[in-house]
C-alpha cells in the first residue's frame, strides 16, 4: 500500500471516529432540554442516518468531477468548520426550540436537525470519495470498498466506546467536540499539504 492510500484510510478511520463520537455526545447535549427518553435517541439516530445517506449521495456525485486529494482534504476542512456551531450555538438554538415546541419528540428532532444535519452530511461525503481515490482497478473496487467500510466503521466503533467510556469522565462535552473539530481540520490540512507536495513532485519528475 502506498503512503497516500494509507493516509486516505487513516482519514476515513478518523472521520468514522468523530461521527460516532459526536452522535454519542448528541444525547448529552439534548438531554437538558428534551430529556433522555428513548425518543431522544430516535431523533438523533434518525438525523445522523438521514444526513449520512444524503452525504453518501453528494460525496459520490462530487467524486465524478476531477477527484483529487486536495478536494478530499477540503471536505474535512469544511466538516471541521461545520462542527463548531454545535459548541457555539447549541444553547440558544435549543432554548428557542424548547419555548416554541411543546412535544419533546418533535423538539428533539428539530434540534438534532439544526445541530447535526450539516456537519454529518459533509462527513458522510468522505466514504464514497475515499473509494474513488483508492480504486485504480475496477475488478478490485469491491475489495477496496470493503476495506474502506471496515476501516471507517472500526473508527466509528472506537469513537463510540472511547467517548462514552473514557472521554466523558475526563472532559467537558464541548471540549471533546472542539477536539473532534480540530482533528478533522488538521487532517484536512494534512491531506491538502500532501496533495500539493505530490503535485510538485510530479511536476519535477515531468521536467527532468
Amino acid at each position, binding site marked *: 500500500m502506498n503512503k497516500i492510500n494509507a493516509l486516505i484510510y487513516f482519514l476515513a478511520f478518523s472521520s468514522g471516529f468523530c461521527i460516532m463520537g459526536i452522535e454519542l455526545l448528541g444525547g448529552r447535549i439534548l438531554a437538558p432540554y428534551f*430529556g433522555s427518553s*428513548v425518543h431522544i435517541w430516535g431523533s438523533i439516530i434518525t438525523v445522523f442516518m438521514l444526513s449520512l445517506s444524503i452525504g453518501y449521495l453528494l460525496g459520490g456525485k462530487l467524486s465524478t468531477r476531477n477527484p483529487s486529494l486536495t478536494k478530499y482534504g477540503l471536505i474535512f476542512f469544511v466538516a471541521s468548520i461545520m462542527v463548531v456551531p454545535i459548541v457555539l450555538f447549541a444553547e440558544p438554538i435549543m432554548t428557542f426550540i424548547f419555548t416554541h415546541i411543546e412535544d419533546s419528540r418533535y423538539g428533539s428532532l428539530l434540534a438534532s436537525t439544526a445541530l447535526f444535519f450539516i456537519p454529518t452530511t459533509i462527513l458522510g461525503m468522505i466514504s464514497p470519495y475515499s473509494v474513488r481515490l483508492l480504486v485504480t482497478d475496477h475488478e478490485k473496487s469491491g475489495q477496496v470498498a470493503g476495506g474502506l467500510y471496515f476501516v471507517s466503521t472500526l473508527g466509528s466503533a472506537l469513537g463510540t466506546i472511547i467517548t462514552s467510556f473514557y472521554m466523558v469522565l475526563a472532559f467537558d462535552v464541548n471540549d471533546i467536540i472542539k477536539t473532534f473539530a480540530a482533528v478533522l481540520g488538521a487532517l484536512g490540512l494534512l491531506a491538502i499539504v500532501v496533495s500539493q507536495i505530490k503535485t510538485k513532485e510530479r511536476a519535477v519528475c515531468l521536467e527532468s
Partner: protein
Amino acid sequence: MFRILMLCLLMTLPFSSLAEVIHKERSLYRNILVEKTGDLLCLKFNEKTRKSTQSCMYESKPKKLVFNYTKMTFASLLFINDPQNVLIIGLGGGSLSNTIHELYPSAHIENVEIDPAVIKVARDYFNFIETDNVTSKVQDGRIFIKRAALKKQKYDWIILDAFNGDYIPEHLLTKEFFAEVKSVLADGGIVAANTFSSSKLYQHESATYFDVFGDFVNVVTDENSNRIILAGFETMPSQKLLIERVNKLANKLTPYDVDLQLLSEHLFYTKGNQDWPADTKVLTDQYSPANLLNYQ
C-alpha cells in the same frame, strides 16, 4: 466451597419462596414487577438485582411507610410550615404523595414520572390517590421543571426522587438542573433529594448541591443507608423552632412510622463541616458522568 454455596442457597430460600409475583410488565424503560411477600407488597424494577426495590407497602397497614429514605424525606417538615404546593419528581408507588396528601389535604401535589407504566402500577396496586389537588404527569423531570420555570410556577416543597439505585438520570444531577429547581422554589421552601450515591459520586454530588444552594443538610439515620439532602432553605432553623415543629407534628407522623424527634437529631448541617474536598469538580451539563463515578 460447595457447602458454603448450599448454605447461602438455604438462607435465601425462605425469602424467595414466599415472594409471589402478582404483576409483571415490560415498560419502555424497564421491567416492572409487583411482588407480594406475606403482608408486604413491593414495586421492583428489573428482577435481577436486589437493590432495585422502589416502593413497598404493608397491605394491612397501608399508612405505615416501609423505607427509611421515605421516612427521612419528612425531615423536610422541620424546615417549612404547612406546604401548599408540592412537586414530586419520580413517583414510585406513590407513597410520598399519598402520605403528604393525608397530612395536608388542601395541598396541591404534582407528581412527575417519566414512565407511564409506573403510574398505572401505582394506581392499580399501591392505592395511589389522585384528586383535583393531587395530579400526575408523564414527563421527564428536567423538562417539567424547565416548563414550570417558564410559567413562573413556585413550589414550597420539591422532592427529587428519580434515582432508583441502579441508574442515575445524569441530566438530573447537574448544576444547571439544580439552578432550574431553585428557580421554581418558593421563598422559604425546601428541596429534598433522595440520593443513592456512594464512593466518588458522593463528593461530586455534595459539591454540586453546595455550588447552587450553599450549605445544606444531610439527613442520615443509618450509616449503611442512603442520605436525604435538604437544601434551598435560607437559614438553619433554631433549636427552639425545631422543637416546636417536632411537638406540633410528631403525633401526626407516628401512624406513618416517621419519628420526627429522631430525624431532628440526625440533621447534619454542612456549614463548617463539609465532608468533601474543596476542589471537587462540580457536575454540569457539560460534565456529568454520574453513573460512571458511582462505580469508582
